[in-house]
């Protein structure tokens, strides 16, 4: 049994978060209108720890829009032509080269996220190889290192949840820094990485033992059972490319799609961005903002040509990237954590599970037909 297990009585939760807020930025899910979103912990309000957050937690590490730097262009001083007293042309001073002043943005300091779902933590570890692998993104890596992720185990699954299909688990121990399980009398906190130590020193936390661990395990097993049997997705990374030119398939799967960005912007694993300079006069800021492959502009080329002019091609990219191309680039990891937000919040009820299963079936059928 893990000796480092901690127990936080329910009545101490807010005091503990408040204590942490003294030295770090504390974020937790909060009800806002009909949605649940991440906000700075507010001791006057209850964090929402039952409903699943409407948005994923990815913006905490990868903001919707962030300044890469601010710039200010210093104009060279004006050097007028001048004449000598005898009327001849005076020697002209070399104009100074215009200078560009760059200011790096401020980065948030130590942060802790309490109460994200396990699948959301899975989203973070699909970001890691993208921004911390072959290409090292200093902005992302700085935030990632400064942030302690506390995932809560899910006690029940929604109709749209499917984390177990893609290697996840309602009690996800693979991806977060701490796994928190809501027991009857308090939270069981299980440290999973070294980062966990930064937040577990409080005297408000007690030690937990066998009994709490058993209570948690029973809840985890119940949630797992609620999600049901996961289908076998073996071969999906070949099935999708095999259907790349299958117009009928993609047209029918995308018929209901509105080509908005709800699915990709709520998705914990979607990580595409676009860069724009927002400037006024000589100053401005270079922004990196989220982008979505469901939008036409995403692939619009300077010539005016758009290789993904139709929504079918865009949906193909979304599903293909998550269930095929990403696997090939990143050691078989599926870049979907099964949170189901893209299904739950799709205004047209487009269901990525159905597309993946249909693709497997159709590719198998084709293979059989081709002998």
């Amino acid at each position, binding site marked *: 049994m893990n000796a480092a297990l901690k127990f936080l009585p329910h009545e101490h939760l807010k005091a503990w978060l408040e204590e942490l807020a003294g030295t770090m930025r504390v974020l937790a899910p909060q009800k806002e209108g009909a949605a649940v979103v991440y906000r700075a912990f507010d001791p006057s309000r209850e964090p929402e720890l039952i409903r699943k957050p409407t948005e994923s937690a990815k913006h905490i590490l990868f903001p*919707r829009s962030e300044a890469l730097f601010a710039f200010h262009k210093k104009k060279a001083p004006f050097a007028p032509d001048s004449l000598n007293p005898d009327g001849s042309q005076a020697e002209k001073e070399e104009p100074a080269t215009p200078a560009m002043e760059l200011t790096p943005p401020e980065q948030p300091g130590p942060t802790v996220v309490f109460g994200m779902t396990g699948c959301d933590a899975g989203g973070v570890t699909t970001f890691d190889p993208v921004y911390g692998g072959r290409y090292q993104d200093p902005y992302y890596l700085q935030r990632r290192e400064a942030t302690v992720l506390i995932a809560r185990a899910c006690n029940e699954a929604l109709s749209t949840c499917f984390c177990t299909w893609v290697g996840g688990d309602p009690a996800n121990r693979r991806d977060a820094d701490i796994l928190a399980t809501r027991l009857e009398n308090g939270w069981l906190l299980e440290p999973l990485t070294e980062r966990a130590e930064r937040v577990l020193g409080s005297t408000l936390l007690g030690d937990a033992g066998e009994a709490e661990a058993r209570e948690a395990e029973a809840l985890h097993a119940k949630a797992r059972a609620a999600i049901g049997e996961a289908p076998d997705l073996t071969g999906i990374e070949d099935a999708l490319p095999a259907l790349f030119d299958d117009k009928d398939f993609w047209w029918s799967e995308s018929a209901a799609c509105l080509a908005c960005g709800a699915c*990709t912007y709520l998705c914990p694993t979607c990580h595409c961005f676009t860069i724009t300079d927002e400037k006024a006069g000589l100053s401005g800021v270079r922004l990196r903002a989220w982008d979505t492959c469901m939008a036409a502009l995403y692939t619009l080329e300077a010539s005016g040509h758009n290789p993904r002019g139709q929504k079918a091609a865009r949906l193909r990219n979304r599903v293909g990237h998550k269930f095929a191309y990403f696997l090939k680039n990143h050691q078989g990891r599926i870049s979907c954590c099964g949170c189901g937000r893209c299904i739950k919040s799709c205004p047209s009820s487009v269901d990525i599970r159905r597309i993946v299963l249909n693709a497997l079936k159709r590719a198998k059928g084709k293979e059989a037909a081709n002998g």
Partner: protein
Amino acid sequence: MADDIHGALREAIRTILPDVECVLGWGSGPDPLRSAPLFMKSPEDVERFRAGELAVNNLAVFLPEYAGRKVGIVVKGCDSRSVVQLISETLVKREEVVIIGYPCRGVVDVAKIAAAIGLGNEDLEAGLVERAEVNGDTVSVTVRGETKTFPFKDVMAAKCSICRYPNAVLHDVFIGEKAEAREDSYADLEKYEAMSLEERFRFWEKEMERCIRCYACRNACPLCVCRDHCVASSREPHWLSQADSTRDKLFFQLIHATHLAGRCTGCGECARACPVGIPVGLFKRFINRAAGQLFGFQGGLDPEAVSPLQRFLVDEPTIKEKEWK
């Protein structure tokens, strides 16, 4: 919804199927409360068709994609007005669409049901619903093995309790007895109008703070017809910045609302589509009422009409000019 109407609707769909590429209707969604658009091509597809209180999506949004091909569409009253408006704007050809109407009693607001099934102060999620059933005037929903029943009117979409056109305003086939129309006095706006401008601005600032700029509100709108060429995402012209600012988000809502002035038919899809529940329909309600008061015009009633902001008249008959000009 009554089984006989369902049967007759299925029959009507099957009848037109040979003449059209597909028929747009509704099928089941990811859970018992939610439906999904259904594109019917074969009689087997028609078996999966269901209309009624759960058939929330406005399928008119898809029609312009089928330009040049003939399709069928099943419409509620509000959906039919979108079709009419699209026809009046020449974005859909009348001869390319077969319209099947039925009397609409209203549709559910899934968010209202989710709030109503909450136990104690815990509001639950539609995704926990195991079973849902609409029986006449009540809705029964089963969550965690427990069934709760509420009056349908309590969980009906707001647009439906003020629906003036529950029956298709234009149709080729109409199945069933016409439903009764209701009145709309724009009473929902009073609460906002009572706020000072400053309060109103704070209200919207707070609401827009959680906007993720996904533009589901725009893309679910059947009359947001610029599609892939919206100024909101364009870099040229570069009107909106890419900053995560409430100013830009609010700016987009005002663009959407003004572009919909006199064209919006009040189908409510913009607000329904918003994943974070921002009441973006309010902007259009305000501007729609203004268009009605100024021009005496409502969109989506007459396929021959031209919306006031899409035409130019030297003298607007409904606007009293100054005595001298």
